[in-house]
Structures are given as C-alpha cells and as structure tokens.
C-alpha cells in the first residue's frame, strides 16, 4: 500500500470516524450540561430577537475598540472566506463531497481557488505574526491556537503545491495534502476549531441569557 493509498483509504476512514466521535461528544456534552437556574423574572416575553441581535452584533467589531481592531477583524473574515472558498468550491473537493453526500454543486475556476487559498495563507500568517508580536495576543494564545494555525496553513499550502505540481512528485504531494487535511479533521473536535460549529449557537445562547436579564450586548 502506497502512502497515497493509505491517505485515500484507511487514513480518510480513521480521520472521519474520529471526527464523528469527537464532534458528537463535544455537542452532546455541551447540550446536556447542567445549566444554572435563573430565578429572576425575564425582562422580555421572547428572547429570540435578543439572541439574533447578539449574533449580528458580535459578528462586527466592538464599537468602542473598532479603530484598533478593524484590520484584524476584517482580515479574519477575509481569510475565512478564502479558506471556505478553497475547501468548498474547488472541483476535486466537490467530487469528494459528492461521493459522500450524493450531490454536488458548481465549482469555481481553479485560478480563483488558487488566489483564495494563497490569500488565506498570507493573511493567516500575517495574523499569526501579529499574535506572536502583540503582548496581549501572545498572552492569551495557547498551544491550541498555534496547532490549529499550523494544521490549517499546512493543508492549504500542500493543496496549492499538489495542484500546481510543485515540489515533490504529484502523488506524494497529494498524499501529504490528504494526510494534512486528515490531521486537521482529527484535530477539529478537540481544539478551538470546533468554533466552526459552536460559534453561532453559543452567541445565540449568550444573547438569550442577556436578553432574559435585560442586557443589550
């Protein structure tokens, strides 16, 4: 069995089994946790509007600090768009999703994907340098952040190299790319990458809690 055979076969299976197990564990653990009982009467009949409002407000830079965090905030958006475009709109990736889901969707031209992936890498590396050099960012960063950044950049970079037939032989580079993506998939439920699934439900819940207490945040 070649490295590519492993990456396309057992490697893929193992990584997705771990992903399913981990995500299910994190979600079940979060949903089933014991919530403290708030005995105070609610300030609103419905907190849905408050929840939705919080989801929107927290997706924008905090007004008071906007001047200082604007660049970081919007560059964060940009690299996420680059990442998701590369993952979801590249024809070979869509073929992979199609084989699982049973349906596909139109792909973007490869040159667009190449630009998106390159931008995502550049911005993420720039933000990481900022994380390393800014005293507050450095203080609040943990190994989890650096592992997540490394795995994401590595998967993007090996994808670009494999697509462009640069560096190693194509089948070896493709195998490394698949393995790097599998490492990212395995890491996903156990690190901060789980925010992909948690971010909007948690903002909704925060909005609901604050709304209950009559706090606008």
């Amino acid at each position, binding site marked *: 069995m070649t490295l590519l055979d492993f990456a396309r076969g057992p490697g893929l299976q193992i990584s997705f089994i771990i992903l399913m197990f981990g995500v299910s564990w994190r979600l079940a653990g979060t949903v089933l946790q*014991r919530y403290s009982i708030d005995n105070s009467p609610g300030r609103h009949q419905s907190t849905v509007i408050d929840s939705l409002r919080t989801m929107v407000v927290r997706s924008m830079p905090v007004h008071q600090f906007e001047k200082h965090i604007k660049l970081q905030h919007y560059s964060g958006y940009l690299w996420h768009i680059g990442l998701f475009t590369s993952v979801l709109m590249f024809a070979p990736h869509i073929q992979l999703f199609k084989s699982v889901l049973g349906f596909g969707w139109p792909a973007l031209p490869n040159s667009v994907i190449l630009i998106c992936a390159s931008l995502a890498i550049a911005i993420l590396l720039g933000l990481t340098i900022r994380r390393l050099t800014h005293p507050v960012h450095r203080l609040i960063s943990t190994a989890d952040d650096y592992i997540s950044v490394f795995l994401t950049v590595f998967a993007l970079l090996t994808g670009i190299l494999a697509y462009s037939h640069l560096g190693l032989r194509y089948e070896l580079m493709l195998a490394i790319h698949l393995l790097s993506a599998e490492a990212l998939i395995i890491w996903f439920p156990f690190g901060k990458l789980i925010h992909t699934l948690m971010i909007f439900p948690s903002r909704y819940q925060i909005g609901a809690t604050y709304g209950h207490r009559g706090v606008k945040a």
Partner: protein
Amino acid sequence: MGDKRSLGDLLFSQGVSRRGFMKYCATLTSLMALPPAMISRVAMALEQARRPSVIWLSFQECTGCTESLTRAHAPTIESLIFDAISLDYHHTLQAAAGDAAESARLSAMQENKGSYLLVVDGSIPLGNAGFSTIAGVSNVDMLRETAKDAAAIIAVGSCAAFGGLPHAKPNPTGAVSVEEVITDKPIINIPGCPPIPIVISGVLAHYLTFGTIPELDSLKRPIVFYGQTIHDRCYRRPFYDKGQYAETFDDEGARKGWCLYKLGCKGPLTYNACATLKWNAGTSFPIGSGHGCLGCSEPNFWDKGSFYAPVSVGQWGSREALFAAAAGGAVLGLGSALAVHRRQKKAAREEKESAS
C-alpha cells in the same frame, strides 16, 4: 541467430532509406532526452550494432504486449527493431514448437551466456507450479533458469512489471512481478497494458546504442518515457486549469473536449508517455478518444477503486462505522454531562451542609 549483419545493413536491405533511418534516430534521441548532437552517435551505434540475442518469455499474459509491438496498423520502423535483435525464442512468434523451440532457447542461452537480453511479459504464478507451464516447466523455474545468465531483463507490460491483472485481488494464482523473483539482475520495467510500442523499441535501441540500461525511476521505469504524468502533457490540461470538466461521456463538455477528471481520469497519477507519443502511428490515445486514463502503467491500478471515480474521491469504508462513531461520541458526551451533574450536586450539597 546466426545472422551477424549489423542493424544498418538489415534496415537498408529492407528498403529503409537513409533519411528514414536518421529520422528514427532523431526521434529516439529526442525521446531519450539526449542532446541533438547525439543523433549521429545514436545513428552510428545503431547502424553498426551487432544483433544481441534476445529471449522473450511469456507467462501469465494476454499477448497484448506482443500485439502492441507487432500488430501496428502497418509495418512501422518501430517494429523493425525486431530486425535489430536476434529474437531466439518467443513462443508466440517463433515457427518452431515443442522440443525444437525449447532447444532454441537453451542453445541461445549457452552461446550467448552473460550477454543475452531477457524480455518477459506476463506475471509469474507462485501459488501452484501447475497454474502456468511451458513445455512442462513452471514459469518461475523457467524464469530463474533463463535469468541466471542474462545481461539484463526487460519486463514488458504491467503484468511482468507489477503483477498485472493476474495479481488483482484475490490473486488466485499468487502472481508476482519479475523483480519479486529475480533480485540479482538489472531489470527495466516497461509497464502499460499494453506498453507503447516505441517505448519498447526505444529501450531496446538505448541498449543497442550504449550497451547500458537507461536511467530508471524508483519503479525501475525509464525516466525518459515515464518521467512525466499523462496530466502534465495532456492536451486537455488547459480545461482542467480553467475548471471546465465533462460531466458525462456525451454532454456538451465531452463534445468540446473538456477535462475528463470528473469521469475518473487517472492522468494526474499516471506516469507514461501516451499523451505525447500516442498510439497507432501517433494518431490518438485514450483521452484523445474521449475516455479517461485508467492508470495502466501504475502498480495495482486494477485494485484502486472504480475507473470512473475521480482521483480526489477516497474510499470511505462503511457509513455504519461513521454512525457508530457518532453514537459512541454521544454516549460519551452524555456520560460526561452526567458526571458533571453529579459533581455539581455533590458540591452544592457540601456547600449547603457547611453553611448549616
């Protein structure tokens, strides 16, 4: 076997013009990635080359490799390579049969001890000696006996190079490649199902010209022919780069000649020269005819999933395993939550007790 004329003498006696011969030499020189200055050396070497003795053994095979070389649409200059060698044994092509055929092999081995070339097509069954025999001799015994005094071995076709279709799961005959049996001789693999005729003749010409084997890759394939992927040199590559793919074999994309990636083309993973040398006197190759590459010059291509599944599609195993993993995770999550509940209750109780 007794003919000691040079290749030049033979070709010219068969009506091949000097110009035609030089064109062939120029093609070979180019194929072998040699500088143009080497054309005259290749021509001189080929012209003066004495015919080396070649013994061609066919084991578990379909004769496609021999057909590839001999059944071109018209007699080609590639097929004339047979005139450049003294083909002393080839049980598909030779007139002799039975004892006469076998004694031709044995006498060729004796007379050219240490200098003859051994060409093998077909895989070698190790499961049972009776699975494939020639004149009552098992394939593996005949290979070992003949390889012993050979100068080099050329494994022609994917069966001889990697085990081929007989090696496919569950491999009922225990088929193996030449290099799994012979480990002490120089081996050149020329895989393909079948290989391109000019690649076979090109390797033979290289041996005739330089007396050495060409530079090989990690799978013992000549780099000059197997150094690039089909995808690298495919005329449909610009469509891949633009993201334009045929979705079915008869849609508009297919009619416009778009990339066949989504239809399972294995060109990106396949090292061969089909896209440049092509088949039938340079007329076409599978992708040119509208079908994706099967990857037939790569090991185990027959056991790597559907021919029609794109390269990026993995082998997922069972969906049941994924559901079982999800269920297991949910149970663990529930267990974790219950444990936390219990701990919180205990802490609350202790706090209450200490307060009272």
